[in-house]
C-alpha cells in the first residue's frame, strides 16, 4: 500500500477531529470464500473517498458492512464514532445510503418515495415538506414531483435516489456505483450534481465505482480494491505519479528518411520506438521532454508532421500497475469469444 490515510487539502475537517468513517482490518467471509480481506482505511470529514475496483472486487460488500447491512466477519467499522456492530441504529441515523441497484418504488410518485423514506428516518412532520421541496430542487426533479417513478429515465431515477438518501440530512453519504448504467451525458450531470450537493451540505462521501474517469474526476482520494484486498490508496495525482511514468506518443510523418527510426530512438528519455508503417511511429517515453525534442528534430530535418498524439499516465495505468492486469471485465469478455476446441483438437 502506498500513501496513508492523511486527509488531503479538499476537506474541511478540523485538525484532530475523529474520522467520519474508519475501517480497521475488516473482513467478510462467505463460507470459505473471502470477499473482503483485511481492509483498513479512514475517511476524513468532508472528503470524497472512492473505492475503485472491477466487478466482484468486494466494493458492495465493503459498503454493506459499513452501512450495517451485513454482519462483519472480522475487524471493526466506525461511522461518526459509532461502532456499527455495537450501535447500528446510531450509525444508521447519521448516514445516507444509495444501494447499487435502483430501488425506488416504481409505482409510487417521486414525492411519495421521498416522503416514505422521510418517515422511515423519523423526520418530524413539520420538517418533512421543507426538506423534500429543497431536495427536489437540488436534484432538479421539482417538475416531476407527482410523476410516477416508472416514467422517469435512468438518470432521473438515480437523482431521485440521491435525494432519497439525503431526506434526513445525514452528514455521511454512501453511494454504490452511482452512475453505472447511465449514458455519458447523464453521468456528467450526476457528477456535477453530487459535487454541488457535497459543497452545499458539507458532506463526507464514499463512492464505489469501476470507472476510472469517475474516480479521477470526483474523488479526493482513491482506494484500489481487487480480490477483496486494498492494493493502493492515495490522491489520484499521487497514484498516477507513483506509477513509473510512460507517455505514449503517436506521430505520423510525411516522407520519413530510412534512418528516421534510429533518430527518434536518440531523442531524450525515449524508451522504445516502433514503426507501424505508412510513416506512423509509436514512441514510449519517460518524460515530457521527448515531445519538444521530437518537434524540433522534425523541423530541422524538414520533415512534415502529419499528426501527433500524446497520452500521459491515466488511472488505467495505475490500475494495471497495481493489479497486474486490465479491468477483469475485459478479460472475461475476451474468454467468452474463444471458440470451443473441436474434437481431437487440444484445448
Amino acid at each position: 500500500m502506498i500513501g496513508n490515510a492523511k486527509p488531503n487539502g479538499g476537506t474541511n475537517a478540523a485538525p484532530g477531529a475523529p474520522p467520519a468513517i474508519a475501517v480497521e482490518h475488516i473482513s467478510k467471509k462467505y463460507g470459505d470464500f473471502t470477499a473482503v480481506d483485511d481492509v483498513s482505511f479512514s475517511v476524513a470529514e468532508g472528503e470524497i473517498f472512492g473505492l475503485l475496483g472491477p466487478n466482484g472486487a468486494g466494493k458492495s460488500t465493503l459498503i454493506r458492512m459499513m452501512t450495517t447491512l451485513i454482519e462483519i466477519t472480522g475487524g471493526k467499522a466506525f461511522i461518526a464514532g459509532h461502532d456499527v456492530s455495537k450501535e447500528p441504529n446510531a450509525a444508521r441515523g447519521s448516514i445516507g445510503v444509495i444501494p447499487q441497484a435502483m430501488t425506488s418504488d416504481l409505482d409510487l410518485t417521486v414525492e411519495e418515495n421521498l416522503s416514505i423514506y422521510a418517515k422511515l428516518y423519523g423526520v418530524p412532520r413539520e420538517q418533512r415538506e421543507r426538506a423534500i421541496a429543497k431536495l427536489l430542487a437540488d436534484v432538479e426533479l421539482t417538475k416531476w414531483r407527482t410523476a410516477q417513478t416508472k416514467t422517469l429515465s435512468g438518470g432521473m431515477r438515480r437523482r431521485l435516489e440521491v435525494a432519497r438518501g439525503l431526506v434526513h440530512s445525514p452528514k455521511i453519504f454512501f453511494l454504490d456505483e452511482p452512475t453505472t448504467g447511465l449514458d455519458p451525458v447523464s453521468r456528467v450531470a450526476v457528477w456535477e450534481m453530487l459535487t454541488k450537493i457535497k459543497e452545499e451540505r458539507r458532506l463526507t462521501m464514499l463512492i464505489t465505482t469501476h470507472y476510472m474517469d469517475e474516480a479521477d474526476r470526483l474523488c479526493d482520494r482513491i482506494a484500489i480494491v481487487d480480490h477483496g484486498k486494498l492494493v493502493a490508496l492515495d490522491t489520484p495525482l499521487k497514484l498516477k505519479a507513483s506509477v513509473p511514468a510512460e507517455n505514449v506518443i503517436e506521430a505520423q510523418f510525411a516522407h520519413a528518411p530510412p534512418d528516421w527510426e534510429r533518430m527518434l530512438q536518440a531523442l531524450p528519455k525515449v524508451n522504445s520506438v516502433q514503426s507501424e508503417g505508412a510513416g506512423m511511429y509509436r514512441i514510449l517515453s519517460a518524460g515530457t521532454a521527448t515531445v519538444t525534442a521530437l518537434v524540433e528534430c522534425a523541423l530541422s530535418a524538414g520533415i512534415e508532421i502529419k499528426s501527433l498524439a500524446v497520452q500521459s499516465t491515466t488511472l488505467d495505468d495505475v490500475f494495471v500497475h497495481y493489479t497486474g492486469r486490465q479491468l477483469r471485465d475485459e478479460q472475461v469478455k475476451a474468454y467468452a469469444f474463444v471458440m470451443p476446441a473441436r474434437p481431437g483438437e487440444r484445448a
Partner: protein
Amino acid sequence: MNRMWAIVERELRKFLRSPALMLVSLVFPLIQLIVLGNAFGGKIRDARLGVVDQDGGAQALKIKEAFNSVAANVRTFVPVYYDDDKRATADVKNGKIDGALIIPPQYSRRVYEKEQPRIALVVDNSDNFMSSTLEQKLAELTEALNTPDVQPRVVQNVALQVVELYPYIEYMKYLLPGSITLAMFVSVMIGGGMLYIDDKARGVHEGYLVTPITKLELILGLNTAGAIKAIASGVVITVVGSLISGVTATFHVQQAILLGLTILVTSLAFNTMMFLFMVRVEDPLVPRATFGVLNTLLFFPSGAIYPINAFPKWLQAVAIADPFSYAVHAFKALLLKEAGITAIWHDLLFLTVIAAIMISIATPLFKRTL
C-alpha cells in the same frame, strides 16, 4: 411506530396503483365460484343404460316399468333395449352406452320362489362418477322393488324433485365460503409471497434496512399491510359472491359483524403463515413454484368443495391441521346456516392461535440484515 405506518403506507399505495394484481386476486376466486358452481352443481342426466331382458317374465317387466318412470321423471338415465348381452357389454366398453343392466333368464321365477333373484349391472369403472351414480340409482330402485308395490314411486318422485328445484344455486352457495377463503389466500400469496420476494430481490428491503427502523416495526408493518389487503379481498368476495349465489345472510347486521370478525382473524392467520413460509426465501421463483402446491394442499382438504366427512382418514388429518378448514367452517356456519358466535368461536380461536404461533416462529427467523 410511525415507521411501521410508513411501511403500511408504502404497501397500500403500491397495491392501489397496480389494480391488475388486485383484480387477479378477486377475479380468480369469483371465476372458480361461478364455473365450479355450475359444473358440479348438476346431477347426471340422460345417461344411456342398456337393458338386456333374458327373462321376459312379469318381474322383468316391472323393472322396465320403473326405468321408464325414471326416464320420464328424473331423467338420470334413458333405457336402451338390447337383445344380446355380449353386444351390450361391448357397447359399454366402447362408450356407446354408459352402462348395461342384464336381467338373467329365470329371474321372474326366482323372485316368486324367493330364491335370491339377481340382476347384473355392467359399468365402465374408469368413469367413477358415472358408474357410482348408476349404481346408486339402481340400488334405490331394487330396494324399492323389494318393498310393497304402491309407495316406492311416490317416495322417489318427492325425493328427487327437491334436488331438481335448485341444483346449481345450492352448490354455488356451498362453494361461497371456500371462494372467500381462497380469495384471501390468493391475496396473501400475491402480496405476502410473490411481491414480497420480488421486493427483496429488487433491493427494496435493502433500502429499508439502512434506515433506523427496528425489526419489530418492519415485521408489524409488513404483516399489517398484508392483512389489510387480505381483508379487502375477503370483504369484496363476500359481498359480490353473496349477490351472485343468492346468500342473503351476509346482509343482516349481526351476520355481517361476525363475518367481518372471521375475515379479520382469517387474514391474520393466512398472512402470518405466508410470512413464516417466506421469511428466509430469497429467490423470486420459489413463491411462484410453490403456490400451486400450497393451494392444492390447503384449499382442497378444507371442505371448501367437498365435505370433509367423505375424506379418507389421512386426508381428514390434513384437514384438522389446515387453517383453511376453520375459515371455511366458520364462513359456512355464518352464510349457509345463519349461525351465531357459538357455532364459530372455536374456529376463531384456532385461527388466532395459528396467527400467534406463526408470528412467534417467524420473528426470530426474520433477519434485519441482508
